[in-house]
């Protein structure tokens, strides 16, 4: 337990010392939030309604999908994981601790957005705080799982960037963050539901703000929970210590299975 706590405190500190992580956890999402908040609410005052959930989802995407995989890939490439292995650091810790420390950073970033959005941009706060917090935590779980999985299956940094962008860009464009879901063509809504952000957005709007939804919001929570569990389980299963060692338990393409709950959601709910 002491080792876990020390490892966690080191990872948490690294999130502030490492400029890339600092950028992905704080500077990029908060900078984008202030910029988008100023521009989008000026162009379309109705955007205030979804500013808070949209920017919180954006922060989670930046930290977990763009920030979380890279250190894991770099650690494997540089032989850091080998050093961890021969010193008894369990594989589970190497997945859980960065995900947990990223989660803490993202909770802090989300707190900054939540505290500043009403006074600065006149954005409404959630009507149902517990439900909103639950949606936020499940979204964080789902995206941390996907981020960890990208870090596990990517053979090098370039591949991890590619996989991250494949999740990140559609999440931004098709989840209803920037354009309300009801204004998008049905096919785009379906495609958007292949990723967690759409379910998180529905959860925030329906459960947090009590607005009408495409489907029962409880399903959104269930899909996020299942997606997170599946992604972490696959990350643990496919984890390799060494980029030079060919021994692995499964083909990296098995990682696609992590999208199964979202696929079922897209087919059955939308």
């Amino acid at each position: 337990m002491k080792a876990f706590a020390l490892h966690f405190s080191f990872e948490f500190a690294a999130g502030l010392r490492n400029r890339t992580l600092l950028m992905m956890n704080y500077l990029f999402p908060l900078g984008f939030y202030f910029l988008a908040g100023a521009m989008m609410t000026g162009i379309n005052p109705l955007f205030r309604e979804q500013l808070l959930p949209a920017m919180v989802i954006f922060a989670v995407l930046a930290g977990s999908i763009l920030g979380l995989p890279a250190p894991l890939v770099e650690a494997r490439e540089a032989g850091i994981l080998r050093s961890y292995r021969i010193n008894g650091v369990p594989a589970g810790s190497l997945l859980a601790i960065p995900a947990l420390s990223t989660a803490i950073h993202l909770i802090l970033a989300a707190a900054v957005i939540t505290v500043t959005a009403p006074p600065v941009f006149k954005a409404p706060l959630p009507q149902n705080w517990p439900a909103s917090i639950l949606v936020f935590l499940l979204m964080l779980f789902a995206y941390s799982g996907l981020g960890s999985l990208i870090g596990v299956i990517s053979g090098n940094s370039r591949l991890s960037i590619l996989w991250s962008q494949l999740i990140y860009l559609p999440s931004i464009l098709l989840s209803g963050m920037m354009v309300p879901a009801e204004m998008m063509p049905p096919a785009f809504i379906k495609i958007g539901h292949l990723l967690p952000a759409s379910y998180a957005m529905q959860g925030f709007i329906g459960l947090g703000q009590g607005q009408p939804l495409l489907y029962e919001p409880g399903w959104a929570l269930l899909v996020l929970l299942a997606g997170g569990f599946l992604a972490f389980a696959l990350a643990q299963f496919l984890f390799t210590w060494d980029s030079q060692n060919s021994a692995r338990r499964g083909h990296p393409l098995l990682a696609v299975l992590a999208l199964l709950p979202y696929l079922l959601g897209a087919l059955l709910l939308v």
Partner: protein
Amino acid sequence: MLEPAVQVINFRKNYGSFTAVDQISFKVLPGEIFGLLGPNGAGKTTTLECLEGLRRADGGELRVMGVSPAREPRRLLGLIGVQLQTGSLPGYCSVAEAMRFFSAYHGVAPDFVSLERLGLGDNLKTQYHALSTGQKRRLALALAVAHRPPVLILDEPTAGLDVATRAALHRLLKELREAGTTILLSTHDMAEAETLADRVAILLKGRLAAVGTPREITAAGAGLTKISVRTDGECLAGISFPGVARQSRQEDYLIFFTAAPGPSVAAMIAQIDSAGDQLIDLRVERPSLEERFLELTTEEVS
């Protein structure tokens, strides 16, 4: 009969169709320093990595303190301290953090004394990316010995170290041996192996070319002693002395390789006296491990 600390029996490792290590066997006794020598690609690191549990053997049997690295990896971790050839640490991790962090995973108190001994006492707050190559290797060694393992496995421990640090590291390794630690190290440095190792194994292209004490291995070769002589004349040139197999010239010195150093030296001095020349310098060097190693590699190539 002492139970070996490390046992390698008919060990084989393939990478695809390439056989990196082919049926080698050796044992390392408790409390000895055992050197694994060989050129690049000989299979030294592969052998060590299989003993460390980082890779799986394709044949044969490996045991460290009676434990199979493949079958009991968790038990193995408490028995070995490892300095990897290609290991690293996170760039933003300080020296002190690394020591606390790994010591906690081994369930022991941080060993700041070893850091001090290895010259890292002033670098406790320095982050890993800011350390020099030598400092990184010393940190890796300090981390490897922190939990006082009975077996230490070191892959090229002195590569990139300056002379003073290398000497300090040699002293530390000898102290660890005296305290009962078994040390298995790979090295390119023959002089290091000769001064440090109790026994060595020479690996060539994945096969074991020789095992024994440095003296035994050098004795198994041609075993010619090198005599370097410098005089103010040319009285020794071209003369045949007892036991001398060949001679050559190196700058102002005549170099003789002889199987009978005593009679050769006596005959050379007598020749110098009778010619009325002055002896300026005379050196007698026994065959080194390096010369034997070169002999073996040449035999392998031919």
